[in-house]
């Protein structure tokens, strides 16, 4: 069983600064592995541990991907090797360009039975890449998977939708996006982190994948923080009955 878990490196949202003109600054942002992708990596590692097989991690993006702490960060969670496609053209890649690059990288890696993605990226949360990747690779493909059981050459999976849970039979090879409730990602030990530094990393750029012509299929016109809604901001302090009574007077017209 060959498994590939895909992940995205995203800016730490708490470091994003809204500037005076309502644009965003990422200048001080640390980069991290998207939190939803940790569930995909964990799901892959567990399958490989339980059934035997090989799990690799794969990410595509711009220079922040090369950060050695991030490389160790993903490898310390269990994958045996790492593939990266790093290219400045992949900065702000849209879902199409991301999926197209992942598809090309997976074809180059070779035989693969199962590809796992998180339910959405930690920054844009478009929840699109798994679906587009499956279609581009012509594989069976599904999202919202909250439980995986392997049976011979198929996967029996539970898919959580808004009002129901579907039990599915998914033939392999497949591309599956997993939800956050599928598992609790492990915290790597110091030993895992040290061992991660010795695992193989293969790095390509877009021309190595013959994708130098690939382009985003969307154009960003603007990205601006929303204008603040004017609020009354009648804030009281204290826990005495008097203060609570005053809060009640303030809100009674609204509440009753």
């Amino acid at each position: 069983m060959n498994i590939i878990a895909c992940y995205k490196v995203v800016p730490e949202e708490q470091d994003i600064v809204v500037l005076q003109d309502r644009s965003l600054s990422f200048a001080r942002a640390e980069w991290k592995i998207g939190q939803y992708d940790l569930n995909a990596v964990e799901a892959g590692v567990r399958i490989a541990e339980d059934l035997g097989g090989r799990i690799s991690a794969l990410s595509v993006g711009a220079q922040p991907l090369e950060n050695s702490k991030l490389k160790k960060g993903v490898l310390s969670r269990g994958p045996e090797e790492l593939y990266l496609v790093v290219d400045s053209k992949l900065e702000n890649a849209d879902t199409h360009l991301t999926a197209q690059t992942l598809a090309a990288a997976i074809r180059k890696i070779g035989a693969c039975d199962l590809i796992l993605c998180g339910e959405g990226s930690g920054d844009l949360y478009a929840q699109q890449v798994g679906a587009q990747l499956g279609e581009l690779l012509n594989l069976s493909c599904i999202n919202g998977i909250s439980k995986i059981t392997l049976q011979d050459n198929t996967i029996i999976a539970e898919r959580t939708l808004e009002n129901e849970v579907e039990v599915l039979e998914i033939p392999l090879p497949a591309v599956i996006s997993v939800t956050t409730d599928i598992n609790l990602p492990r915290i790597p030990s110091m030993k895992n982190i040290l061992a991660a530094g010795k695992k193989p990393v293969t790095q390509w750029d877009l021309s190595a994948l013959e994708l130098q012509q690939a382009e985003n299929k969307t154009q960003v016109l603007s990205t601006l923080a929303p204008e603040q809604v004017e609020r009354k901001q009648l804030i009281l302090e204290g826990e005495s009955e008097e203060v609570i009574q005053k809060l009640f007077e303030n809100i009674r017209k609204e509440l009753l």
Partner: protein
Amino acid sequence: MSQVKKVWVLAEKTDALAQLCAGGRQLGEEVAALVWGSREEAEKAAAYGADKVYWLGSPDQGRMLEDYTTTIGELLKKEIPDLLLVQPSRRGKHMAGRLAAGLGTSVIVDAAEITIVQGDIQIKHMVYGGAAFREERAFGPTTITTVGPGVFSVPAEERGSHGEIVEVEFREPAVSVKCLEKKSKAGAEVNLNAAKRVLGVGRGFAEQADLKMAEELAGLIGAEVGCSRPIAEGVNWMARERYIGVSGAMLKPEIYFAVGISGQVQHMVGANQAKTIIAINKDKAAPIFQQADYGIVGDLYKILPVLSSLIKANR
């Protein structure tokens, strides 16, 4: 407002279909709906205002709606609508992605606003956990977007006219996933998006049992109870359907009552459309107070019982 020629809509549920048809009317000269189910369902869609209904028939047992992606994809390539509006459900987003990949384009998800500027479709949607709204447009003959709930409202009266129904022949996909069983989900019936009043609870509560205090207050003011993400996904005190924010519910209530919630942007994006925001939190510096109309800095364990008894006494 200028319009494009053809807008298509794709929805699993009839209320979403009606909303998207109404949106399609605003944006396009001609609206076509992709509809599953009996012929009656197809006729209903025509009554929602679709000029044309592409009737896909009833799915056989075990067949997933996703299996229609091939059929719909071929139809898109042949008819080339300018815009495809899709319901933003998990299934809708999945199908949108596969259709877009088939057409060699991208998807813009959770549109909060769609405008047509000199024939260009411009779509505004939230990014970076609510820190910003991005305006974007897609290249390619067909723009595909999922539309956030409540972006379009259904007109009070149904259009009397009946559109044309076109039967579409099913095309077997090359690969497919089989549905073995469907189970209903416990506790999934809450619809926070539609609630007029919502009371949100956060990590200010020390124990799950303490949520009773909040539930009592919610009951007194007729509010649905929602929560911040860690309550649903960290400690699992509440069902996932109840959490508010980026990947959870997006509210538009008259009153949002935040109890023990600090008000990080990822949460507030789901609540800041409320007409009135009331906050209780013991941390004076909590960002929630910057965004509240009324608030009290203090211990919720002392404040909630007194507030509840005041409401009871004054009803």
